[in-house]
């Protein structure tokens, strides 16, 4: 497989925000992610697409420290990113999950406040003592969490249990919780999976609004319209390796991408839109890493 040229991130001067170099993840004999290079520039929205089982979520887990990559290096904001989830979050990388993972029996507001864990410091003793510093920190956490709920459109629902939110609202709450850690880079793992077109549009607007706050976004997605509307660049992962990376239009037109999704064309390649639907048909199907 030929190494595709890494495009210079538009609109960024110095080092890129996230720089993954030859990230490899092997589980025994299975190579789930094979030498993937990927950069995300400041303020960019980058899409990561690929058929089921291509290793996209595994790659995310390598970036966020849930997995320790077998080989390769992840640099973030000019420094090596240690493969420890707490340090990754503190450095400024936040994520959502493909299958919603909220704290179901905490309230909506508490979920977001937990997201601020790395930006707050109160320990057990100050929690028991409740000095002025503790109270200020709590007040700030509450008001910041309230703002974030407004931002994602969940204002006024803070006291509900997270489990009682509608599906789309749960996905938005996950984004609010991730934003609470004040990230510079937000990793979204299939944010529109299982959503109807209306909810998908709303999510699109939300991701745009996130970027407008100066937060870069790396998004795994199957909805090709979503990718086309949002992304500055798109990388395609097939069987653990990066097939191509480039502007959305170029990627969409690339024969290899069509082939990866639909198999080799018989005579004429079908219009890609149908291909997207084929790939989107069962977005909830569990990918084996």
């Amino acid at each position, binding site marked *: 497989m030929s190494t595709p040229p890494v495009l210079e991130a538009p609109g960024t001067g110095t080092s890129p925000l996230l720089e993954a170099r030859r990230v490899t993840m092997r589980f025994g004999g299975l190579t789930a992610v094979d030498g993937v290079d990927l950069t995300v520039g400041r303020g960019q929205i980058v899409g990561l697409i690929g058929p089921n089982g291509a290793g996209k979520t595994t790659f995310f887990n390598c970036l966020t420290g849930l997995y320790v990559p077998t080989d390769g290096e992840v640099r973030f904001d000019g420094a090596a990113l240690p493969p420890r989830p707490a340090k990754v979050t503190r450095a400024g990388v936040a994520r959502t999950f493909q299958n919603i993972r909220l704290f179901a*029996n905490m309230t909506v507001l508490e979920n977001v406040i937990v997201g601020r864990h790395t930006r707050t410091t109160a320990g057990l003793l100050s929690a028991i003592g409740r000095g002025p510093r503790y109270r200020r920190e709590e007040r700030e956490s509450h008001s910041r969490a309230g703002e974030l709920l407004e931002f994602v459109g969940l204002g006024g629902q803070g006291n509900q249990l997270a489990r009682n939110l509608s599906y789309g609202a749960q996905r938005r709450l996950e984004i609010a919780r991730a934003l609470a850690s004040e990230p510079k880079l937000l990793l979204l793992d299939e944010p529109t999976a299982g959503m109807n077109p209306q909810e998908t549009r709303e999510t699109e607007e939300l991701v745009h609004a996130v970027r407008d706050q100066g937060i870069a976004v790396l998004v795994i997605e199957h909805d090709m319209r979503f990718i086309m509307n949002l992304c500055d660049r798109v990388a395609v992962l097939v069987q653990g390796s990066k097939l191509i990376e480039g502007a959305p239009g170029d990627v969409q037109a690339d024969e290899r991408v069509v082939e990866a999704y639909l198999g080799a064309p018989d005579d004429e390649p079908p219009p890609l839109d149908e291909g997207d639907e084929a790939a989107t048909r069962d977005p909830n199907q569990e990918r084996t890493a």
Partner: protein
Amino acid sequence: MTIKMSSRVAQALTATGAALTLASPFLAWTWTAAYPGNLTLNGYPGGSQVVTLVTGLLATMFAAAAFGVPGVRRLAPAGAVRALRAASLAALTTTWVTVAAIAITLGGAVNVEPGGWLAAVAVLLLATGAHALADDTAESPPKGVRLPWAVEVALITVVFLAAMFVLTYGITTDSAEDFLAFLPAAGFGARALSVAGVTRRISEINARHRVAVAALASALVFPFTQTGDQYTAIADNILVFAAVALGLNIVVGLVGLLDLGYVAFLGTGAYSAALVSGSTFSTFHIAPWPFWATALLGMGVSLLAGLIIGAPTLRLHGDYLAIVTLGFGEIFRITVNNLDGTSGPSLTNGPNGINAIPDIELFGFDFGAPHTILGVSFGRFANYYLLLLAVIAVIVFVYARAGDSRVGRAWIALREDEKAATAMGIEGFRFKLLAFGLGASLAGLAGTVMAHLQTNAVPDNYKFADTAPPNSAFLLAAVVLGGMGTISGPLVGAALLYLIPAKFEFFNRYQMMLFGLALIVMMRFRPEGLVPDRKHQLEFHDEQVSGAEARQVAAEATV
């Protein structure tokens, strides 16, 4: 369950039943004073008759509310008929238990006087009528109004004193028959108040005030009502048990770590206190340490033990953690058994334990000697009762503040979804170890008092399972039975689990079996515990609490 009957007849039955139920305790139920509580007097209720009278009054009140008597209706905001049914069942069970107990213990139904028969029929009429009335449960109970500050505070005080009165009655029953009649009455009575919406209204009011102060104040009343040490000793043991259960609730209820060896930390605290108590059986022949130093030592040693046991085990999850903690609990007991100078180094005096631990002396206050406070003589156990209340207050304070903070939220997040919590930057191992250490040190604190209270520290007090609390199985059961993640849950659970074996000593052979059965029944019908966390209730009874919302989520998920 409902009975089909015209509403006229049902009302008439209920009214007649209620009236007769109220009248029957004033008649003689049996001819001999051999039955406990003296039920032979006409015109004066005694023993279990009082319970029938109180439950009858409760039923009458809800009946009046169900019939729409002006003013009374407000006492059952969420609907009176279901409350009336529960109250009628309270009267029915307690009365029939008493009548049956008279017949059985005195050797035949001939021992039941007409008054007893009347009572049995009256409660049956009442219960039949109540179950034939049409359900009037309000779809959405009206919101409670804010009352003036003084009224609300007075209300809270009355509620807590009433609760304390009921509990005191249970503790001071002097026969198994009386306790057997009390237990279902208390259970169904509590249910009546709960379905009537009274409990909810009270907790709404409680939320606006410093309710812990009121609870503590009413608990302080108990020793003033006691003349002897007999029941204060029981109350002391309940408090020790409850204190440890509260500590365990941090580990189990908040963080969701199943710890089956928790009693070892109670033992660590008790042995630490015993060793520095100046007892002649202690290896260290020293002057007794002051209690504040002993308490700190007990907490410190238990904390250390918690960290040593937690550091390797907390990397395990779920069942594995449970098994390993079970093992460490037993290791503690076997170790103190063997540190007797022959099997191992001499430290704990082996199976004989450390006995003759002197009483605590704190700032010149000798806990062993009687003191007179406000004209009431406080014996040894009443002194310890006060100390234990202080210990519980400390534990509740720590629990409440830690639970509602950044640390507590991290604990609950770890319980809910460890992977997501990790992704939020919570260091799982560190926070689990913190909870484990905090729980251990609180148990150690309770242990230091327990050693002095019982005047000894012996290995057999710290088993995994035994017929009497505290042991690890009972501690866990108290937390689960009472309600995980709440403060009042473990207190209620501990009181019940201590009183039931203590009052029914004749069940001894079957105790563990009954205990197991009770837990199974509980897990089937009320998995969230007797005093449920609001959130847990939503979790287990989704279809009732938020059926509409659940359906909505399901519908949207299938889009």
